[in-house]
């Protein structure tokens, strides 16, 4: 048991680093995912994750595989993407899915093209799929910093975010500056997608953000409850994913996302809130 769970982390420094990075990610990203899900903006997260790729590519072209350059590029591209997605959403009156799908396909194609002008398939796959095991010190600092900022900001913005999600009309009438809080929120999403990109790559950056959140919907009846459940599911996915990848020799990022996916399936089947089992297993009804 000890050999299975602890010794890989004790023995290998790169695994410890990967573990710390993924745990930081697991604490910060899933709460954002819960709000994205509740606002029916799951697709927007995906668009932002792909939208940072051209910026990362630009950073890569200028400075090679440098965390600073690629992060700056990705941050800029992500903010442009967030504003763009918001503008598309307003222009289409909320029926933005087709335009968003177009946006993210273009961003992905542009990013891959830019990278391919200079790099081989090694670097390309590193940028697309990430390399959890190659997380270096700058990347680790970035992930930990982003996680801290996210948790602090969420603690401050919690009430306005819940209000803006639940009843934007009331928020406007009460002059709660819902739009400003929403921009803060999108900024946090961009930061976290950036941080996740270091480990999971652009293609799966939202994996630890959305999958635990979607799974958590089946475990809680309040925003707070869902958030705790989502963080727990993400932590579990990170640890099990890393271990599975080590023992079974699987690519690490996909292993983590696959475990999260498996936990989502379990939640859909067994979760107490709208789970399949809860629907099929008819307990005697209550008297009042």
């Amino acid at each position: 048991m000890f050999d299975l769970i602890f010794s890989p982390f004790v023995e290998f420094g790169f695994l410890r680093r990967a573990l710390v990075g993924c745990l930081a990610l697991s604490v910060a990203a899933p709460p954002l995912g819960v709000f994205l899900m509740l606002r029916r903006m799951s697709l927007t997260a995906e668009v932002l994750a792909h939208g940072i790729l051209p910026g990362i590519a630009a950073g890569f072209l200028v400075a090679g595989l440098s965390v600073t350059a690629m992060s700056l590029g990705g941050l800029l591209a992500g903010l442009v993407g967030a504003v763009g997605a918001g503008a598309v959403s307003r222009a289409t009156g909320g029926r933005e899915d087709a335009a968003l799908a177009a946006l993210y396909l273009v961003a992905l194609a542009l990013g891959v093209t830019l990278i391919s002008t200079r790099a081989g398939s090694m670097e390309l796959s590193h940028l697309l799929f990430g390399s959890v095991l190659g997380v270096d010190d700058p990347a680790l600092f970035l992930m930990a910093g982003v996680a801290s900022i996210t948790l602090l900001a969420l603690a401050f913005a919690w009430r306005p975010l819940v209000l803006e999600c639940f009843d934007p009309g009331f928020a406007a009438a009460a002059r709660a500056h819902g739009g400003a809080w929403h921009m803060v929120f999108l900024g946090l999403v961009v930061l976290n997608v950036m941080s996740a990109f270091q480990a999971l790559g652009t293609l799966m950056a939202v994996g630890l953000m959305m999958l635990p959140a979607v799974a958590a919907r089946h475990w809680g009846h309040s925003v707070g409850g869902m958030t705790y459940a989502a963080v727990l599911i993400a932590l579990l996915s990170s640890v099990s994913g890393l271990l599975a990848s080590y023992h079974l020799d699987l690519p690490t990022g996909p292993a983590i996302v696959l475990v999260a996916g498996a936990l989502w399936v379990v939640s859909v089947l067994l979760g107490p809130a709208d789970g399949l089992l809860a629907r099929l297993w008819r307990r005697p009804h209550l008297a009042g």
Partner: protein
Amino acid sequence: MILRDVTLLHGRRPAVHHLSGDFAAGSLTAVIGPNGAGKSTLLRAIAGLHPAQEGRLSVARERIALLPQAAATDRQFPISCLEVVQLGHWGRAGAFRALGPAERRAAHDALAAVGLEGFERRPVGSLSVGQFQRVLFARLLVQDAPVILLDEPFNAVDARTAADLLALVRRWHGEGRTVIAVLHDLDLVRAQFPRTLILAREPIAWGPTAEVLTAENRLKARMMSEAWDADAEACGLAA
């Protein structure tokens, strides 16, 4: 609250056209009129959510509570009744301040006042339409605003809920608050609302209900064309 020659637009089309008049402090007014007559837009403008193209609205905006038409809120959102009611404290507590015991007490009392004692922890997704409307009224109670705007508050609720909520409206009137309600039920307006505004994009009549609700005025309101006039020219009635 004074309106001077107010014109509100959707795009370039007038939703409310050259409306003047005043809602006296403490008055209880019903706003009636056909579909698309600009009633909801007028309430939104008073609440500061719709800019006036022309004219002036002299309104103290800080203390206005607006109950919009039911469609706007996300009824599947995982939030409890008590939490919704406590949102009514937003004007005083804002984004950050914690709620004190008096404010928690007020939220519990408001739920009891709308007949939903014991619903504190129920998620709003499990409520019926009428129960949800009661929760929103409880939030209005907590907001404790001197001016209350109600947009079709009794739509799609059962008779008993409507009667209970109407009693609250009467209570607010008795407490000296200004209440403006968009309504469709003319018998209700006649029985309970001292003043009435008939709006059909243009104001048709505004005053004491008995004088305003004549067959002639109602016919005039019905004559309003709901369709847009494709050849409409710029309005010559400059402010």
